[in-house]
């Protein structure tokens, strides 16, 4: 195994560890809280700033090491060269068929222009109809307050 491969593998393990610890931190807080609530403590807070900080503390050194290795790797140009090599999946290559024909047919399609104009016109009509029927206000109403269920708070 070359030094570069070792570097990449160590970095992979670090990334996996950081991700694992981040996920485990949330899961442990949740299960602790769920157990407390099951005991009848309705107001037990699963997450607090302090609890989250305590759980995330062990992640910081690993994250910093990983970040340092990333910066070092980028400066030294360490990267998986395989990602630059052309695709070698024969099955996939076979499925490509005649690329030129399809790409060119798509680009040179004369109906493309009409379709584009039609969709643009339709979009303009839809937007106007939406402004009239209150759709614009609905978007504003949702966006102007925090959507707790969207961000995972609710």
């Amino acid at each position, binding site marked *: 195994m070359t030094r570069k491969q070792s570097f990449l593998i160590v970095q992979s393990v670090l990334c996996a560890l950081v991700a694992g610890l981040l996920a485990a931190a949330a899961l442990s807080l949740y299960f602790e809280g769920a157990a407390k609530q099951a005991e009848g403590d309705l107001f037990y807070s699963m997450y607090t700033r302090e609890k989250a900080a305590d759980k995330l503390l062990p992640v910081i050194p690993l994250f910093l090491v990983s970040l340092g290795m990333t910066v070092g790797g980028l400066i030294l140009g360490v990267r998986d060269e395989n990602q630059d090599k052309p695709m070698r999946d024969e099955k996939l290559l076979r499925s490509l068929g005649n690329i030129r024909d399809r790409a060119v047919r798509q680009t040179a399609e004369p109906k*493309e222009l009409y379709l584009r104009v039609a969709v643009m016109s339709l979009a303009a009509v839809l937007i106007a109809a939406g402004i009239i029927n209150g759709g614009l206000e609905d978007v504003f109403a949702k966006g*102007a307050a925090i959507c707790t269920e969207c961000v995972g708070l609710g």
Partner: protein
Amino acid sequence: MDKRESARKTGREKIGRPASRRLVQLYAALLYNANLKGFMDGHIYSGGLKAVCVPGLNCYSCPGAVASCPLGALQNALNAAGHTAPWYVMGILALFGVVLGRTICGWICPLGLIQELLHKIPTPKIRKSNVTRKLSHLKYVILAVFVIAIPLIYGVGKGIILPGFCKYICPAGTLEGAVGILQNPANSSSFFQLKAVFTNKWVIMVVIGLACVFCYRSFCRFICPLGAIYGFFNRFALTGVKVNPDRCNGCGQCVVKCPMDVRHVGDHECISCGKCIGACAQGAISLQCGKLTLMGPEGGPNAGPEPAVRKRKKNGRIAWCIAIAVLVFAVGWFNLIEPALSKAQPFAAAVVTEHETEGDSALGFVLGTEPGNLAPDFATELLSGEKFQLSEHRGQVVVINFWAVTCAPCLEELPYYEQLKTAYPDVEILAVHHKAGANKAQDFLAGKGWDHLDFALDSKEKGILPLLNASDAMPQTIIINKQGVVTYNAQTPLTYDKLEELYKSALADNTGAPAEEKTETAKEAAAEPTGEPAAAAGKRGILGKRVYSVTVADQHESPVAGVILAFCTDTACRNSEPSDENGKVTMKLDPDKYHVQVVDLPDGFDGPENMDMYIGPEAGDATLTVIRR
């Protein structure tokens, strides 16, 4: 062999100019999130621009976001399709799709940028294959199920707001919205809301992030329903990579070297990143907007006429100058100009009388909305046309609930307030609708039969939310005891059981009552069979609070009466009542660490020796020593 040829041989193409694409991605991320002060003050932008969607996936609950997320808006519109047809959002998506197609994904999506930066981490990489191509169809399933079916079925069929993708999957919502909100200490009470939904979304975000390290744009390729929508328009979009049929020889290098799961240049998986432009030895591919070439081969025999390339570069420089000017204006507008203009609007209904302020300050109360604070008085007009004044409800427990018709948890808990008012007629309940979408509230309430509740609509002019320092995160509930002192304030949905316990707790709470009244209230509370017993010292009470006890003594260990202390966290302080004849000061507080400071000393005493005294949940009774002169 020239440099370009050499680069092609080694597979390290530079011709696609990823650096300029990265700059555009950074620019777009900053423009979408130009409300930088939101990260500082913890509030989201709620101006009129939120009625417009940005093209990329950018959570509208991110404190920096100045416009709405098209995917969130689409789910919300489908949720409400029963009464308002979702024309507006569909029109916006069609417009973005036909003008830009998936160029949006490759160039102006903040989540795309994050994924690409994660992929920069040097690890072994998973290359595209038949497996990844099959996985790329998953996003259409997610689009059909989580973005269309769930919001439609729940919204139209059951009347429940459920943005399926946002709630269960979207990592942009978790990263930009939840983390963006929670990182600010001003939103600490939002932590109370975090439960299974957050845990689930956090784990999903971490897994997606990890996948992006190893596999290029994993979220974009396999999961993102917005990319799936724009993919439908890619074939005829105005902007995108195009092939010159006169030059293309069908070698397939464009597809072979493309990191996305494309079958040919410009298909529904193509994000127009431009890597194929550098990979094409024939110089047959370019990024076009109509007839305008945005990016094409530079140098070499297929680069096109030299004046055309020079003109393109010149146009590019002009475009950057305009773009930077727009960004500077946007940052200035959202962070400096608009806040200054909105501050000029007075709160017509928010009035705290001088008499009360002076009188209550004399009792050692701080006006505010934290538990233990005296709630500021305000007046507002109810939907029924009557007037509500908080001070007129002294002697009653007052529950103030902040809600919005667009907030699913709010709508779930509103019936509990009606139930509480029916069970306990003495409680006063005021439900204040957020200013956004307030005109829809009356339609929503019609026929609900919630006749016992007092409903009010907030507005920029009345400003009950800012007066009570309420968050934009709904629902929020503030409970005020009979003396006007806040006993509970949290942004979390409540069940009926919790609400009832909180009400009973507030009923038994005698903070702010004169001494003789306190005795009476304590007796009443003791006689109330369902009431909560007062929290014992060191034990957590019904509100998650503990009674902290500090003894104030002089250097000879004699107790000192009449000392007022402040219990401070990093963000706020609460003043105690003066220490009693035994030097005792007790405070009912959240289990937290507090820095105790002396606010007021009787004559003949100097400040304490142990100025930096901290007390925490584990500490027993603490002693603070002041110096007797």
